[in-house]
């Protein structure tokens, strides 16, 4: 008999208990803090248009226009992997709850990063310039290389050499802010 009635207990319990599902959308869903809803730029002022998010984005959803001073995202292409958030040297990108709503057209969302020059200078960069170290004062500590988000700087303490890969450099100016001897200038 137990083999024939093995599901009866579960059926009776289900019959007299609340539904396992919720009445969404009448009752809104509750999302945990870590939910991967969408990528959001927390503060436009912090963005230095370095383009690391664009380079890192696996589906190519982000586009950075340094000349036009805009940052745009094609939300329907974004896979919420969070790689851009990890790569952002200024930590101005974040993944927050709230899913992209459905739409009939794939229109990118564009943010205008105002007054690029002034903001970049305030953040340590300078008009997208490249860093140059004053080797007389440099102690070859390697902090610039360690903090470089694009791994564009090579420091050899033994050989006392400081090299910049200009192609890889995104001009974010983080090396300048991290340098303990203040011997890096953005030129």
């Amino acid at each position, binding site marked *: 008999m137990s083999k024939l009635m093995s599901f009866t*207990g579960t059926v009776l319990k289900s019959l007299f208990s609340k539904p396992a599902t919720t009445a969404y959308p009448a009752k809104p869903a509750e999302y945990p803090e870590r939910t991967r809803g969408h990528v959001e730029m927390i503060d436009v002022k912090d963005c230095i248009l370095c383009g690391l998010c664009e380079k890192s984005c696996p589906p190519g959803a982000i586009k950075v226009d340094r000349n036009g001073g805009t940052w745009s995202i094609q939300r329907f292409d974004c896979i919420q992997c969070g790689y851009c958030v990890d790569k952002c040297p200024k930590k101005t990108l974040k993944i927050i709850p709230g899913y992209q709503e459905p739409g009939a057209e794939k229109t990118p969302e564009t943010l205008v990063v105002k007054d690029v020059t002034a903001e970049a200078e305030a953040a340590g960069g300078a008009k997208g310039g490249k860093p140059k170290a004053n080797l007389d004062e440099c102690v070859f500590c390697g902090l610039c290389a360690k903090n470089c988000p694009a791994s564009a700087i090579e420091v050899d303490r033994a050989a006392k050499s400081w090299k910049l890969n200009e192609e890889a450099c995104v001009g974010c100016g983080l090396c300048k802010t991290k340098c303990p001897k203040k011997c890096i200038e953005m030129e």
Partner: protein
Amino acid sequence: MGKRSVVPFGPHHPVLPEPIHLDLVLEDETVIEAVPSIGYIHRGLETLVKKKDYKQYVYVVERICGICSFMHGMGYCESIEHVMNVEVPVRAKYLRTIWAELSRIHSHLLWLGLFADAFGFESLFMHSWRLREKILDMFEYSTGGRVIFSVNTVGGVLKDMPNEMLTKFVKMLDEMDGELRKVTGVFLNDYTVNSRLRDVGFLTYEKAWELGAVGPMGKASGLNVDMRQRKYAAYGDLDFTPITSNVGDCYARTDVRIQEIFQSIDLIRQAVAKIPEGPIATDVKGTPNGEYFMRVEQPRGEAVFYTRGNGSMYLDRARIRTPTFANIPALLETLKGAQLADVPLLVLTIDPCISCTER
């Protein structure tokens, strides 16, 4: 000898979540031979390795499959870490183990639901997925994603689980235990369900070995092969014995998967008790130069990740051998001599993941 006829099965079939086609050579209602064809959902993900650098490729690998997504990411990252001789922090290894075992529970519950649906037990399907939902909630709570987590990176993991969260998860799993036993008990004890599963689709130990069956498919035929015994991630610190059966029919394969759910809960309990404090990732500089074969035990069986780097940001080759690919020859063997009505059940019994197979 009856009249022979060929009946096409799939690629679209009510019980198939993904497309695979079988040409069934029948003699009356008995299957004599099955000829498979795949290629309906090939996406060329292995080729993408030429366009995405080795760190970006983690997110591509995770999207090979929606069910064992985490373990694909983990296998690939561990493979690259071996190539680059990166030592992963111990806490990261434990976190990977916990997420991997939670993935195994969710995958097996998903399969149990689909399996119940295949033999026409709709409410058992709903109850299996109701329980799976609790595991998905744990994923969302800890990683932000319900199916694809994106927490693996070369050198460790991206998100930590505080100890309070881990304790809460263990408590939730303890509370689920009773319900899990009730629902899985129906698969194991119900007369009607048993009449569909017992003595159907035999795979002998010799054939399983010869055809290279992996995971629960091989274990149900007595193959004591479990890649977790190779002690990747934190499995070296945990105590477990692979679950096997000597019967080799559909019932044995269901039984092995159900016992694996409870084994995974036990492994999570052990891991939470032993997890040390410390960093969750190590900084990885440089590029991979060399090759490595990484073997991991996914819910469906052994997956192999071969990576070959050439010293640049882009790998030369990434080859992923997934468990369903390895289990198709064994499936064809079980189909020989089966009744036509049992074919959907037997196809599901390998827990087919065609997205994995075709990549």
